């Protein structure tokens, strides 16, 4: 059941749309290949689109934070876009923080914030 999330390049920015169930292997692979791509293309930012993700629990939050941290270590910024209202409310209530990534309402706004448009 090997799968890999496609990483799309928009100008000097990398985009990953997360739609599948995240598990350890997939998350680590994504983290590794993102870091590799950030270096290869001198990416300014990484955008993770979670608008298709209906449930985000503390484990997935940690994965997102880890990816954000590693991307920031390389000097790029990491944006999470498209968090659903109910997901945001739930994360707040759980007391879980998404503190190692920036957020934007949608892809457009993230690109704008990354001064790419």
């Amino acid at each position, binding site marked *: 059941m090997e799968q890999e999330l496609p990483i799309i390049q928009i100008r000097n920015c990398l985009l990953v749309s997360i739609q599948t169930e995240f598990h350890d292997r997939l998350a680590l692979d994504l983290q590794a290949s993102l870091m590799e791509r950030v270096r290869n293309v001198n990416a300014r930012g990484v955008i993770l689109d979670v608008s298709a993700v209906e449930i985000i629990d*503390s484990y997935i939050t940690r994965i997102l934070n880890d990816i954000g941290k590693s991307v920031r270590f390389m000097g790029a910024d990491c944006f999470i876009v498209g968090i659903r209202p109910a997901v945001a409310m739930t994360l707040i209530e759980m*007391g879980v923080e998404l503190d190692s990534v920036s957020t934007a309402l949608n892809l457009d706004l993230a690109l704008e914030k990354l001064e790419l448009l």
Partner: protein
Amino acid sequence: MKTVEQEIGAILAGNISAITQRSIFNRLGGLAKTPINQLSPGDRLTIMTELENSVRLFARSNSPALIAACSRVLNSGGAMSASGGGLAGAAANAAASASPGGGILSAPKKLPIELEKDIATARLEAWSEAVRIGLSKFASVKVATAVSELARNIIFYAVKGTVELRAVKDDRGSVGLQIIATDQGPGISPQKLDEIWGGTYKSQRGMGKGLVAVKKLVDDFHLDTRPGVGTTVTCVFRGER
């Protein structure tokens, strides 16, 4: 006897566009033209699954109540709307379904948690169960998130166990969902428990915050853990307060 399309169509009218209704009934194929009293339990499940998926996405208002109303009509063999029919009937049905004792309490669902993919399954089951008993959209997401945390704990720490979902009524008659996550894993030592509740516990794989998060999300929380024997978490979500 009216067909599925006629009965369900009457309930959805005004809440879901005609085009969307068309595509729902198209996806149901021959089932749409079947008289309601000739449906098998499997047929009803197929119809309800389709409705839950579509209504949640496309309803203009209160989708759990609509779904509950559809469920009642399907299970009653179509007798429900004989009195009212149309929008008024649908509203009455929806109101009746939201009240306790409306026949929406059902047998508990016990889900095995053995593989990582079971976490996703448990989450979806919990979500649709929450919607079915009439919890709000936000509450249903909370239910699914809590189940996700509990199922993940089972996979990470106990390898396998079960998650049980049960619709319950409290003494004031309001409906809620009880979640019981059980495993025969290593249990949690008292020292580790102190760290968990104190917020200082760091796990290798997660954030070490799963249990704390669940406790914050639910209305009732009970943890029973014995090192070497296993762990049971029992919690309850109530409807809107």
